[in-house]
């Protein structure tokens, strides 16, 4: 029998492929662009490009008075603007050397935790829909709507709220708001159970997140990660516990941590537990809400009440000077960090004694977290890049400023 020609296997040739993912891509959560060098399914190199949403917030802030620059902070992390406002007013209050009254502190803590819930709900919804589960997204968004309705009841705005003000909050809260909020708080843990039923033990979810985006505790600290990204790796750093601001030293809550080294699944567990803790904080704030004023008695720095402005001359002049010239501030510099849903949001102010900040710097957690994407993604599969973008919980408004 004659042998046929042996089949010579031609060596299978592969070529490195460069793919530009974004800036218009639904899974990049905004205008993030990643240039991926792929070898088949494997990511060889990942280069993030940010800055598509750069609006020069720092430069704008340096050209406005301290009181007038507050709405700029809404536009940083636009899905949890309440927390940005709280961060901004805390930093400015530290610079001014004033303190908000007790009631205002409790209200701020309450609304900041509502902001955290609404942000974590978005994170959960988008993270799981990126990986392929549609149901939790729709369930989550329905709950977020309730929080936004509460914000609307509180101050008239749903997204860019500007409710916390330097020295307190804009207006006192109504009994109707408190009742609706309490009803929501009692019911919400069951909704978290719903999400967990659908996601936590889900085989596909576990396969897609466990062992993906692994980072050790030491490395996470060295990268400057904060928030859920850091706590997912087993370090309990939380600004609310380490350097308490507002009423966080008066409420009881726990800081959930993951294992070292942490992966996407650990960070998922941490953030879900954070939602339960945020819910607990809101409940305590509603129950323990002290009576009293909601604006600090610091006429040199805070605007006078509107009814008095309309009635007498002195208050009108006072308001005029504060709005046009700005408050006169001592020379110096402060950095104040606060815990926003994404991590540590810091404001660094340099004052030269005028009513405008000489230097305003925003330390945005998403910016730092975007820089760690190559570290998490390189060497993994291209599908895991999506999981990694979801797990860093990025908002480009904050990243690009």
């Amino acid at each position, binding site marked *: 029998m004659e042998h046929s020609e042996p089949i010579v296997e031609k060596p299978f040739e592969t070529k490195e492929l460069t793919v530009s993912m974004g800036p218009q891509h639904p899974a990049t959560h905004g205008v993030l662009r990643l240039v991926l060098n792929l070898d088949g399914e494997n990511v060889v190199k990942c280069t993030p490009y*940010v*800055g598509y949403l*750069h609006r*020069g917030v*720092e*430069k*704008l802030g340096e*050209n406005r008075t301290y009181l007038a620059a507050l709405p700029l902070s809404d536009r940083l992390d636009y899905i949890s603007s309440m927390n940005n406002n709280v961060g901004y007013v805390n930093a400015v209050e*530290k*610079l001014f*050397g004033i303190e908000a009254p007790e009631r205002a502190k409790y209200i701020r803590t309450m609304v900041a935790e509502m902001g955290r819930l609404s942000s974590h709900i978005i994170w959960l919804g988008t993270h799981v829909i990126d990986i392929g589960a549609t149901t939790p997204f729709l369930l989550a968004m329905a709950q977020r709507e309730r929080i936004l309705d509460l914000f609307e009841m509180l101050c008239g705005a749903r997204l860019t709220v500007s409710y916390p003000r330097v020295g307190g909050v804009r207006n006192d809260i109504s009994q109707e708001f408190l009742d609706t909020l309490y009803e929501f708080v009692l019911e919400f843990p069951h909704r978290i159970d719903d999400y967990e039923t659908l996601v936590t033990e889900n085989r596909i979810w576990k396969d897609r997140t466990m062992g993906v985006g692994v980072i050790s505790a030491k490395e996470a*600290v*060295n*990268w*400057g*990660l904060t928030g859920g990204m850091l706590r997912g790796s087993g*370090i309990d*750093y939380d600004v609310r516990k*380490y350097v308490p601001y507002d009423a966080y030293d008066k409420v009881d809550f726990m800081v959930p941590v993951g294992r070292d080294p942490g992966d996407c699944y650990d960070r998922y567990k941490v953030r879900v537990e954070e939602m339960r803790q945020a819910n607990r904080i809101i409940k305590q704030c509603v129950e323990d809400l002290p009576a009293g004023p909601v604006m600090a008695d610091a006429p040199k720095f805070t605007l006078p009440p509107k009814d008095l402005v309309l009635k007498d001359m002195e208050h009108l002049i006072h308001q005029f000077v504060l709005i046009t010239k700005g408050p006169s501030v*001592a020379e*110096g*510099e*402060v*950095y104040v*960090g606060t815990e926003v849903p994404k991590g*540590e949001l*810091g404001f*660094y102010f*340099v004052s*030269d004694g005028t009513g405008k900040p000489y*230097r305003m*710097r925003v*330390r945005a957690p998403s*910016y*730092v977290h*975007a*820089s*760690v994407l190559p570290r998490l993604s390189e060497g993994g599969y291209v599908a895991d890049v999506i999981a990694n973008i979801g797990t860093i919980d990025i908002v480009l408004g904050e990243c*690009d*400023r």
Partner: protein
Amino acid sequence: MEPLQIAEKIKEKFPESWVDVKEFRGQVSVTLKKERIVEICSFLHDDPDLSLDYLVDLCGADYLGKKEKRFEVVYHLYSIPLRHAIRLKAEVPESDMKIDSVVPVWIGANWHEREAYDMFGIVFRGHPDLRRILLPETWEGFPLRKDYPLQGPEKEWSGFLDVLDRAKRYREFEWTD
């Protein structure tokens, strides 16, 4: 450890780099000469009594006409195990806009230094990938400098002119179905 004690330690260890120390609202900032900044940072990072392992923030600042040395690079450091913080400020004169990069100490400094380069034009020696980050690579000027106009330069950025030109050509194009 109290922040002033940390400042004292830096002064003891690096007397020739010392400029001054200021306290405001309980926060301490130490001004330093830029020459030995990486050594100082790795000392602060590695010393077991200090162990400032977390670089909170790094940014530039422009003191045009206010200070003799125009620029500063500001480092906010925090120690997660020991819970203390300090702020370092390295002076960068306009005549020599170079400073050593601290990426070997904190890898997270990478993007912060790129941003400081992008916004102020401060060059970080030894940085692995010093490019503009928030602005397009063809951008001219450094926006956060005090002599940069708020509304931007009079001449439009070339990339935007290019877009306008393309839009005009598309408008003139005869679309047929």
